[in-house]
């Protein structure tokens, strides 16, 4: 048996800083883990003492990719704490904005970060020469989703118009109609994306685990709902700690979580496994092209589930715009908060999985306590267990191949490590 020593310092094409460490000798695995080495930023600590109006704009800065996700979840937590009710229009715009971000994040991950592995390239840049139409398609989808976010929130990264109570700006009906046309035109790019990614040779690896996501009765859940797991559990959002059960591990600035098993997985694949029936028919067709039916237990196919979700989000965005236009769009001011002491939990299923923000406010509306539980943290334990099961299966392959496969596994989880380096042990009083 061979000696295997893989040490990938700062895995590339992921968001944030993480290392892969594998040390095996004569088939005996001494070390096998993914380390998070991101500098902690302490958001939960430093939002204390800030007014409720700032919270979602500060916590948006946790992550440049899922800024809409953090901002929406944060505003939701504040709105619950202060008893703010959104208008129907604001709720539709929140969902539409969210779809923009989900498409944006998924196209970044699938095309820019994952696809180069299948073309033997180190980045998307060399693909410009060998597959220019593919790169141009990716740029086109990215621009569409970014423009969709900007139309509502002002910009994609750190949306300024997304405020507690709704939005400080309303898109016009003309803008919505123009966006609808572009989304309809994007169906061709969605079809081509499904065709491309379904043709790739995905690594074969199965490991059963528990999949955790949001769920709703009437739609494929991204914004709010209840917590659902493939092991048959459901919880209201306020009970999130019964699911996350966080623990600290010394080699990672991201805390680990577990529920019914030793670990669980969140993200596109978890949503797919829990809520498949609510996908748009076009998205179900896309799943068929990948040969995917719930429950899918190959973590590499998380990327495929993202492609399926892109198709769904384009279709659902078109339907939301139709609903907005049918209702008629009013330029409306955000709902005003009745400032008082209170506590609230917000949750969204952001591109990388279920996210929780939990705040307590004093009677003047200043934050007393905050807790954010990030999807990437929740995936850390599961990723490590996948690695421990995968390594013995591939240990006799050349070291470079082992390294690439493990990097691909890490990338499949689409880790957002900047996000992951925030968590806390605070008990709310």
């Amino acid at each position, binding site marked *: 048996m061979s000696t295997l020593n893989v040490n990938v310092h700062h895995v590339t094409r992921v968001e944030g800083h993480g290392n892969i460490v594998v040390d095996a000798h004569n088939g005996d695995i001494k070390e096998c883990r993914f380390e998070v080495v991101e500098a902690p930023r302490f958001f939960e600590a430093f939002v204390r003492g800030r007014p409720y109006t700032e919270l979602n704009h500060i916590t948006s800065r946790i992550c440049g990719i899922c800024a809409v996700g953090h901002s929406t979840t944060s505003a939701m937590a504040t709105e619950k704490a202060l008893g703010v009710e959104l208008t129907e229009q604001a709720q539709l715009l929140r969902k539409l904005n969210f779809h923009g971000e989900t498409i944006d994040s998924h196209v970044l991950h699938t095309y820019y970060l994952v696809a180069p592995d299948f073309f033997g390239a180190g980045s998307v840049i060399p693909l410009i020469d060998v597959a220019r139409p593919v790169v141009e398609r990716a740029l086109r989808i990215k621009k569409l989703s970014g423009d969709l976010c900007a139309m509502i929130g002002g910009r994609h990264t750190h949306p300024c118009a997304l405020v507690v109570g709704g939005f400080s700006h309303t898109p016009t009906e003309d803008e919505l109609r123009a966006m609808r046309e572009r989304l309809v035109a994007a169906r061709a790019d969605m079809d081509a994306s499904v065709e491309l990614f379904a043709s790739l040779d995905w690594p074969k690896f199965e490991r059963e685990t528990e999949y955790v996501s949001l769920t709703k009765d009437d739609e494929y859940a991204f914004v709010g709902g209840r917590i659902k797991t493939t092991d048959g559990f459901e919880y209201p959002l306020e009970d999130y700690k019964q699911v996350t059960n966080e623990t600290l591990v010394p080699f990672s600035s991201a805390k680990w979580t577990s529920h019914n098993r030793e670990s669980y997985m969140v993200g596109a694949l978890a949503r797919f496994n829990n809520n498949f029936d609510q996908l748009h028919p076009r998205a179900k067709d896309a799943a068929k092209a990948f040969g995917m039916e719930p429950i899918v237990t190959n973590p590499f196919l998380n990327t495929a589930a993202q492609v399926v979700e892109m198709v769904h989000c384009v279709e659902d965005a078109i339907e939301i715009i139709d609903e907005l236009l049918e209702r008629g769009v009013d330029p409306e001011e955000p709902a005003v908060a009745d400032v008082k002491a209170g506590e609230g939990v917000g949750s969204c299923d952001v591109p990388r999985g279920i996210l929780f923000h939990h705040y307590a406010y004093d009677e003047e509306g200043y934050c007393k306590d905050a807790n954010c539980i990030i999807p990437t943290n929740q995936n850390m334990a599961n990723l490590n267990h996948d690695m421990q099961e995968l390594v013995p299966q591939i240990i006799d392959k050349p070291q470079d191949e082992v390294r690439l496969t493990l990097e691909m596994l890490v990338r499949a989880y689409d880790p957002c490590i*900047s996000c992951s380096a925030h968590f806390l042990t605070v008990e709310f009083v």
Partner: protein
Amino acid sequence: MSDTNGKPKVAFFDFASCEGCQLTVVDSLQTHLDLLEAVEIVQFREAMTEKGEDYQIAFIEGSCTRESDEERLFTIRDQADLVVALGACAHTGCVNALKNIQPSLDDVREYVYGDKAEWYDTYPARPISAVIDVDAVIPGCPIDREEFVKVVKNVLLGKKPGIPDYPVCVECKLKENVCLLLEGKPCLGPITRAGCDAICPTYGDGCEGCRGLIPEPNENAMKDVLDEAGLTVKEIMSRMTMFNAYYGSTQSPGSTAVTQEGQGSA
């Protein structure tokens, strides 16, 4: 990528940040794919595997928040002819510096990491100019895509980066926006460095000061205006520190050597 044709070699680095500014760089390719023909990117961990250490221009995103960051910054400074602070974290410390104004850093660490606080090294968040010399800055949280392209073009032509030293109000007026302060909404436009095309006020949300302050800002007059708009003292102090906590109340980012060097002639 292999044939450099004498193109300047560029590398991107990140410290404590959300990496949103590097994403904005990636997004600038949607409209400026030809940028890749003007430079050779030798290192960009977020987007590529190749890792070259031979570069002339370094873009650095993120704040310095621990001693172990300093060595990496020195290495980059030694190698690069030109160091550009990319975005607010690198330029002013951004929201990272909010931890600096909490009662104690020990408390901050314990609040987040409990009895394991000693596992996690940290000190007050600093802009990179507090550690190394910086040749140019691209302000903002996040950076503005068009301003990034403009600064890159200027740098490649050997010109000064040319970021504005006038306030956001100028751009807001040019857009013919109704002044939010007149509607009683808080806005730091009068003292914040322009260059963002007044995006927040244009979308109905008052300026939060993410681009740092103009040179010699009249902060007392700003406080009076916010007071007239109906804000309490606590709310005024909060707004003034949201993105500018590193500089405290006495020293503004506009007064540091770094920003003045990076200002250009605009």
